[in-house]
């Protein structure tokens, strides 16, 4: 059965070339060889894209994709909520539903997987991450609003035969990653990645009777096949993946077998099972290296069964995504284009308590993206796509990226674009189920849970200058981005602490973000990275205009890395230190609660520190130890109404600071090359 499925997909792929190469063409993501930096910003690429290499990912505890951005100022990693322990990310101040998150250019974290999807990709699988701020490319769809994050996994061709990573931390979390690789022939290679993690003991550092992070276990297996034949121009990828993730959280005394869906104790279980199959086929035309065609297909089956106290939430998503791309030139390689078709189908079986909110979404679209590059100072990418979606209608999505090098070592960038999406209000906000809040959707005329589609325009301006600072290599960047919502599925926790309201935006909603970066290579192997970020994200709610809750207006970021010279046999020390400061954050409205369950309007400001030391003994063996939240800053009250979890003031969703205090970890990495 599986065999014929594979075969069929390959055959359907009439013609081709791998999308990743295509993507590199269209956004010109340049990989700078020889540079040892973990974060690479090019002065030549058109879009505001940062490349994060696997080297950078080794700098954090980095158990999964969500945690891999902790040393990167472009992306804010939120504190895991008291319940699920899952870290959410934000870009330009907007949460992950507004970011197009792709894995090898196939949209991966979307729909049902929006809340926990980032934690379903283990960090060790990742080869590199490309972060594009702003509108992004039209090639992968119309949904991205604030940016795109694309993850490339380690490619079977070029992988090492064996990699083992074991990790343990003081929060009783353990992890084992094993990668196997085999070159089957000179054209075929395969990798098998097996990831397992578990949190085996209950932690309650703040003595509120609730676990600070969930018990859990995850099994995650992927088998990848890569085919490359340079003579014929054919390339292909096949992936099969299975993931099973189980979490249990809530009160320490909660026993799921005894207490599930009762008021004995408050508890929650979130079980997710997911199966993915994807294929890519690509063909580069003979004698025309600039012309190629690519076809990719992805199928996934995602099934989440969960309850949060007395709230039950089950969602099953069957999804099919297909993308056909043709790349070529107009007269010469200064004028490139990409054009093609997308098709998506999503079948949701979704149940919120007893309400059946199941639906089927499908869309078909055509895109055209033109890239001009004078190979010198000026380049731009102009893209447009036309889509038909059964709930969003027929609509056009334009995107533009412009790059200009006004003088040496400087780059000025501008981008603008439109995004449109259907908000999966329950899946995206499921952390609110772990509260006594009543969910109410106030609109009934829209096609998505009664709401209309979200539409936003994003504009951005960025300037980077590299220079010498007292003889040290330095660079500075200033980024300004604005997102204007024409319509938004407003999530309102400002009205009442006993309610969460969803309604169509009436009035204004915008997100302004300003980021100032200053990076310095003090001496060779000693690098300093600093950033200041300003966010002004405001929405007109029913009860007035407020800043987006749980978003700091001001943030500082600092990172210092130092590595000793590599001595014989690859021996080396590496040190890394990250500091984050967050200003006050608007908190959800709790003013009507009884006095002891009231929070102030704004959270206090605070800072956190992470550090890591890696000792490489040889090119095949290394040990690392590190600490997170070394300053041991924790939120004073992580669970509101903890003493009466079935009472009206119970809320686990208001998390503005770490819930878990200091955390220390250690791990080993072993390779056979």
């Amino acid at each position, binding site marked *: 059965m599986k065999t014929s499925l594979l075969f069929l997909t390959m055959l359907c792929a009439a013609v081709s070339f791998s999308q990743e190469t295509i993507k590199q063409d269209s956004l010109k993501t340049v990989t700078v060889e020889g540079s040892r930096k973990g974060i690479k910003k090019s002065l030549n690429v058109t879009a505001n894209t940062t490349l994060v290499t696997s080297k950078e990912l080794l700098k954090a505890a980095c158990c999964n994709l969500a945690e891999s951005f902790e040393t990167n100022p472009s992306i804010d990693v939120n504190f895991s909520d008291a319940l699920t322990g899952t870290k959410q990310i934000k870009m330009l101040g907007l949460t992950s539903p507004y970011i197009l998150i792709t894995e090898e250019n196939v949209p991966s974290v979307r729909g049902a997987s929006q809340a926990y999807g980032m934690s379903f990709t283990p960090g060790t699988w990742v080869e590199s991450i490309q972060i594009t701020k702003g509108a992004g490319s039209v090639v992968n769809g119309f949904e991205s609003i604030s940016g795109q994050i694309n993850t490339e996994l380690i490619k079977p061709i070029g992988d090492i035969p064996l990699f083992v990573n074991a990790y343990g931390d003081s929060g009783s979390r353990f992890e084992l990653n094993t990668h196997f690789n085999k070159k089957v022939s000179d054209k075929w290679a395969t990798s098998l990645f097996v990831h397992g993690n578990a949190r085996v003991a209950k932690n309650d550092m703040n003595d509120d009777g609730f676990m600070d992070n969930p018990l859990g276990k995850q099994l995650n297996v992927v088998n990848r096949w890569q085919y490359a034949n340079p003579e014929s121009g054919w390339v*292909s990828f096949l992936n099969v993946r299975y993931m099973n993730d189980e979490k249990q959280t809530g009160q320490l005394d909660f026993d799921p077998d005894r207490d599930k869906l009762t008021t004995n104790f408050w508890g929650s279980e979130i079980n997710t099972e997911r199966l993915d199959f994807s294929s890519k086929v690509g063909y580069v035309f003979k004698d025309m290296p600039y012309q190629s065609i690519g076809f990719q297909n992805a199928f996934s089956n995602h099934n989440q069964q969960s309850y949060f106290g007395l709230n039950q939430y089950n969602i099953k998503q069957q999804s099919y995504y297909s993308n056909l791309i043709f790349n070529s030139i107009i007269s010469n390689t200064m004028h490139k284009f990409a054009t093609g078709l997308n098709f998506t189908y999503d079948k949701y079986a979704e149940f919120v308590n007893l309400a059946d909110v199941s639906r089927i979404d499908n869309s078909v679209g055509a895109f055209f993206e033109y890239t001009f590059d004078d190979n010198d100072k000026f380049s731009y990418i102009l893209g447009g796509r036309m889509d038909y979606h059964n709930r969003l209608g027929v609509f056009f999505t334009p995107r533009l990226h412009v790059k200009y090098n006004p003088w040496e070592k400087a780059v000025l960038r501008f981008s603008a674009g439109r995004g449109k999406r259907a908000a999966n209000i329950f899946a995206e906000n499921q952390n609110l189920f772990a509260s006594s809040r009543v969910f109410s959707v106030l609109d009934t005329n829209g096609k998505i849970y009664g709401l209309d589609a979200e539409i936003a325009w994003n504009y951005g301006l960025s300037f980077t200058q590299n220079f010498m600072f007292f003889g040290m290599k330095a660079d500075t960047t200033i980024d300004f981005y604005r997102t204007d919502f024409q319509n938004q599925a407003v999530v309102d926790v400002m009205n009442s602490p006993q309610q969460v309201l969803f309604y169509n935006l009436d009035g204004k909603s915008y997100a302004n973000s300003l980021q100032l970066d200053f990076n310095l290579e003090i001496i060779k192997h000693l690098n300093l990275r600093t950033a200041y970020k300003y966010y002004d994200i405001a929405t007109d709610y029913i009860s007035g205009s407020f800043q987006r809750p749980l978003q700091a207006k001001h943030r500082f970021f600092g990172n210092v890395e130092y590595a000793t010279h590599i001595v014989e046999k690859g021996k080396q020390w590496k040190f890394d230190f990250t500091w984050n400061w967050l200003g006050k954050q608007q908190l959800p409205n709790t003013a009507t609660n009884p006095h002891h369950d009231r929070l102030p309007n704004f959270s206090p400001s605070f800072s956190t520190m992470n550090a890591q030391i890696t000792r490489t003994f040889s090119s095949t063996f290394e040990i690392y130890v590190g600490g997170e939240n070394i300053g041991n800053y924790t939120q004073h009250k992580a669970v509101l109404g903890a003493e009466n979890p079935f009472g009206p003031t119970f809320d686990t969703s208001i998390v503005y600071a770490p819930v878990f205090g200091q955390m220390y970890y250690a791990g080993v990495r072993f390779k056979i090359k």
Partner: protein
Amino acid sequence: MNIMKNIVIGLLLMLVSFTAQAQEKKSKNAKYNIEVNGNCEMCKKRIEKAAFSVSGVKSAEWHIDDHQLHLIINEEKCSLIEIKKAIAKVGHDTDEVKATDEDYQKLHGCCMYERK
């Protein structure tokens, strides 16, 4: 192993149909490597720009290390000699056409390559 076999057969089938199609276009995508003298990144930009100024040049990439200009051209629209002339005009010697001293002298200081 069965999976592999099927995939390979699938790939082969597609391959056959493709090579047949690609061959007809050959004269429109003629590949040439020519030697062009130069030094640096600035030279690279200048040489490639000059090559692209000739209509019919589809791809032009000059490598600093071995001074080779890799061309893909439509032979129905242009000839190699036209491209070499265009490159010589901006001051760079090619194997066949040399730049005039006047054009060579106009080059930026760092681009003053050693003439053969």
